[in-house]
């Protein structure tokens, strides 16, 4: 909840929002039953868990600390990154062999529709 006690817009998912998320995730709706389950669970997660990340009691402490990408500070503990150079896989055919469709050493995919360039 924000300071005016109005629900934060991030804390609710309706049918329209679910459709938008499914589109972004490239996951199609399967059935009304599955969509109902997803909406129920996603909203439970928002109101029981995500809401606590927005707890205004945390504001001062969060502003006073920098975000971390990892718990452990890795900067002084890791080997230098290797040179950013092409490092070919020894057996490209073994990799292509994993692909559902290949032709002449390339992955084959359906045409991508372009409405504009």
């Amino acid at each position, binding site marked *: 909840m924000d300071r005016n006690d109005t629900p934060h817009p991030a804390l609710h998912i309706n049918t329209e929002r679910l459709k938008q998320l499914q589109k972004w995730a490239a996951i199609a709706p399967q059935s009304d039953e599955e969509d109902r389950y997803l909406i129920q669970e996603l909203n439970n997660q928002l109101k029981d*868990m995500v809401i606590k990340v927005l707890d205004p009691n945390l504001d001062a402490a969060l502003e006073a600390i920098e975000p971390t990408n990892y718990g452990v500070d890795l900067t002084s503990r890791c080997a230098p990154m290797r040179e950013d150079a092409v490092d070919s896989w020894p057996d490209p055919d073994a990799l292509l062999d994993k692909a559902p469709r290949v032709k002449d050493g390339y*992955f084959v995919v359906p045409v991508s*529709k372009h409405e504009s360039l």
Partner: protein
Amino acid sequence: MSDALWQYSATDLREMIQSRQVSAVEVCEALINRIESVEGRSGGLVQQEDEIDTRHIHAFIHPLSLESARKKAGSIDEMISRGDDPGILAGIPFAVKDIFCVKDTRTTAASSILKNYVSPYTSTVVERILAAGGILLGKTNLDEFVYGSSTESSAFKPVTRNPVDPSRVPGGSSGGSAAAVAAGEAVLSLGSDTAGSIRQPAAFCGVVGLKPTYGRVSRWGLIAMAASLDCVGPLTRNVKDCALVLQVIAGQDSKDWTSVTEPVPSYPDLLSDAAVHHTFKGLKIGWPTEYFEDPELINPDESADILRAIERAADLYKSLGAEIVPVSLPHTSYAIPAYFVISRVELASDLHRFDGVKYGHRTNQPVDDLYEMYEATRTEGFGVQPKQRVLMGMHVSSAGYADQLYDRALRLRALIRQDFHRAFEKVDLIMAATTPTTAFPLGGIFGDTVQMQNADRLTVPANHAGVPAISLPCGLDSSGLPIGLQLIGPDFREDRLLQVAYAFEKENN
């Protein structure tokens, strides 16, 4: 004697094999016989459970690599006969969670989308165990893409059952790895721990499970869930075995930049009586009040047996000379919410790679364009639990919400890390329960995503902080189910965790 070999620890078997008291082939056959008697059907797609399945463990997800195991055991025996060094895990049969790539084996992450994926390379940790003479028996079941705490969300059935009580879950997501060790189907196993996925199943099944410090063990070849939190670690029958496996798998790996260059101590050597006795001189063990008193984390009625067991462990440590010191980790109740946001954002990104182009399942439906192919492939390939997690990841990372939610979650992680840092200025390590409950019944909470996520509330803080944590058996509840004692240490102090865990195990026996 041969038939009983499945009951021995890796430490004992190692000595017996190298002194030629038993052969690696005999050990391997004993494990195979054990698997044949308790495993039942291993995991497969679209398998309905029969009544007979309820009496078996189903720890493995694939037909096992038993012929290659027998062959390798034979070659270990030949090496020993020739006087060659066969490695420190020579002849020890092990299993790996099916989230690790192993060359020329199916690697599915328990998902239909990878049902036919055969890996072209081997993960660093598996490579290191194989190089040390370990014998791979097979890949174990898990929650689909490790998304769960019970192993029930696997696309591969029959579901894995807890060897202590087959009507209950083995925990998760490394449930198959824990069950295999507890049931004697493998001497040791590998798991991964993003929010507690090694420690919670270890606690539920009554075995030892270690989440090392982030960066201590290479993640190369591990299918990522949340790359900033994922850790690889062992599940074993006792603490000495845990030290042995960590010795083999720890250390820098040029293929994983986040693996650190910190030297690797000789962990098994540090478990001598003298070394452990020395560690207890002046040892201060933190007692985090939130883990025992915060109503958001623990229900004293529901967890009464567990709390009593941890108090008994504290008494034992006091009798060994340690001082128990109250400490505060004030942001612990925010650990699950912060984890929830960070992990969903990372996994939604990680799962974009599964699109039917380079590997894995691809739809056979007629499609008009590339997006339709992606969509049909992913819809067919993912189970409902990965779907809901990806959708939430898209939601919390979308424009307008990411700054408020993701950025705050990353700062919360820093606060949780700071809590531990301050506590470790006062104490050498921290003790708590691994889980707020013992193993729950199969089907008990599956489908309730909030309850399932909350099962990790005592383990996930260590993942945020990156610090090492171990779970070891510390008694049974009134239903006879195992209870886990969790010890948490400062960065890269796995040596101290293992010593203090070993002292408990030795005295408690």
